[in-house]
């Protein structure tokens, strides 16, 4: 549904987006991750046709956004960053306006407005002016606007920003539910959200894509992926370290905690696989250690995120 090819945007002499390519199909929820200023919003603005690209193409539902902007825009629902809305209107007036400009009339319009009001829990503020709304409600009002025409493509720029935990949960569920039938791109810097919602994630840093895969695949890039944490009783530090280091699959052994009852160790694998835990279990049986706890780490997204995007910021600072 969304096809982005070699997209680039230059502001002055700054390359905000630099050769980004990806595509999103129906039924996919693509998470867009990256540090602040990485080019997430700029990319989204180019997809929605708000700003023209300096180079590259975007096509939505087969329509090039430069050659057939109106047809492409018709397919898109867009929630801009900070969820702007006309402050002088009531929520009801604003949603009616959004429906009308999307070409909905009379009964269709009424039905569409009712549907989004229900979906976004706006009943209680329907006749309140947008100006007087709390941030959460304003956000949901703008979100409601983006889905009023039941678009096939949704572009959401930080849809959960500024919401309380309950609202975040609701919005995530909503995105996941809609993701079954639509193509959705959403940006965030909350990593748990990626796990909760995305079927695929892209990490973008300084205008370039630095990682692209399912949350599972991204996690595999972590040093942690496949690491085994074990709590062993009746043994001490030195012996454990020595024996575990001799394991074929072990790359590094770290003792996390030591006391009279035993030690807590973490063993990092040479490559992620399920074997390592088995080996450790067998070893402890052979050595007559009491195995009190054993589990394999899944790998952590925040760590992947940091290792991918941090080196750049560090070198940047040094300059």
């Amino acid at each position, binding site marked *: 549904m969304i096809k982005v090819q070699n997209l680039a945007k230059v502001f002055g002499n700054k390359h905000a987006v630099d050769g980004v390519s990806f595509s999103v199909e129906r039924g996919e929820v693509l998470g867009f991750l990256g540090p602040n200023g990485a080019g997430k919003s700029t990319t989204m603005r180019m997809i929605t046709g708000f700003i023209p690209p300096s180079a590259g193409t975007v096509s939505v539902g087969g329509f090039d956004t430069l050659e057939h902007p109106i047809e492409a825009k018709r397919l898109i629902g867009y929630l801009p960053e900070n969820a702007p*809305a006309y402050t*002088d209107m009531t929520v009801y007036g604003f949603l009616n306006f959004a429906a009308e400009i999307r070409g909905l009339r009379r009964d269709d319009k009424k039905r569409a407005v009712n549907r989004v009001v229900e979906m976004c829990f706006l009943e209680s503020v329907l006749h309140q002016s947008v100006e007087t709304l709390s941030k959460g409600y304003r956000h949901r009002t703008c979100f409601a606007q983006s889905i009023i025409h039941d678009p096939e493509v949704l572009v959401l720029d930080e849809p959960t920003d500024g919401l309380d935990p309950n609202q975040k949960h609701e919005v995530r569920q909503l995105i996941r539910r809609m993701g079954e039938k639509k193509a959705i791109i959403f940006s965030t810097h909350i990593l748990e959200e990626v796990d909760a919602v995305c079927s695929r994630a892209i990490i973008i840093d300084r205008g370039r894509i630095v990682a692209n895969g399912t949350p599972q695949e991204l996690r595999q890039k972590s040093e942690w992926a496949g690491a085994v944490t074990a709590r062993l009783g009746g043994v001490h530090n030195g012996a454990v370290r020595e024996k575990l280091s001799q394991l074929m699959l072990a790359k590094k052994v770290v003792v996390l905690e030591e006391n009279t009852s035993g030690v807590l160790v973490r063993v990092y694998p040479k490559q992620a696989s399920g074997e390592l835990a088995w080996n450790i279990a067998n070893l402890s049986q052979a050595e007559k250690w009491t195995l009190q706890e054993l589990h394999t780490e899944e790998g952590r997204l925040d760590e992947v995120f940091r290792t991918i995007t941090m080196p750049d910021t560090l070198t940047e600072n040094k300059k």
Partner: protein
Amino acid sequence: MNAWANIKTIAKRELGAYFSSPLAFVFIVIFLLLCGFFTFMVGGFFERGEASLSASFFLWHPWFYLFLVPAVGMRLWAEERRVGTIELLLTMPITAWQAIVGKFLASWLFLGIALLLTFPIVITVNYLGSPDNGVIFAGYVGSWLMAGAYLAISCITSAMTRNQVVSFIISVVICLFFILAGFTPVIRLLEGWAWPWLVDTITSFSVITHFDGFQKGVLDSRDVLFFVSLIGFSLFSTSVILRGHRAG
């Protein structure tokens, strides 16, 4: 057909925005008070003893509009940019032109409403004497066209900035030029040293020169064309500026 529906939707929203804030009422009240005061006190409507509105009523309009129209137009784009709703508006399935025209029409219509509310003065002059109502009608048409020209200029300045005050000041200055270019004392000053063709060129750009005909009851196509093309050119400039912002 579709384009017209979009323009209508935009215009409806914009007009609603005027009336949902006190701005509309403040504007109308001030405009009517100014009209009343200048017509009867300064313009000497009664002392003149003629059944006409040109010398006492329409004469002041270029000057009222100088301050009032930029106040109406300043928020059109500046506010959209400040709040960020421009990002919503321009990602809707409409062209930038439809948005520009829709917004312009809404404000122009609003100015038209304010102008129509001066109707008691027409009733008064008809009660007191028997004026040529055709001349009065032409005056109203000219006045509305002139307001549209000012408004279109305000559209440009409003699109240039996200600060409404800056927009207001710049458009007052530009509109002032369009008045002064035909203001008699300024013309006299110019005639002292400039070539006649230069003076003619400058005065031909003035709203006063072109409004003059309407006040006398003459609907000259050249005058109409002047205002219409000023509006067209200004709206086109607005679209160029808006595109320029987005191109970065």
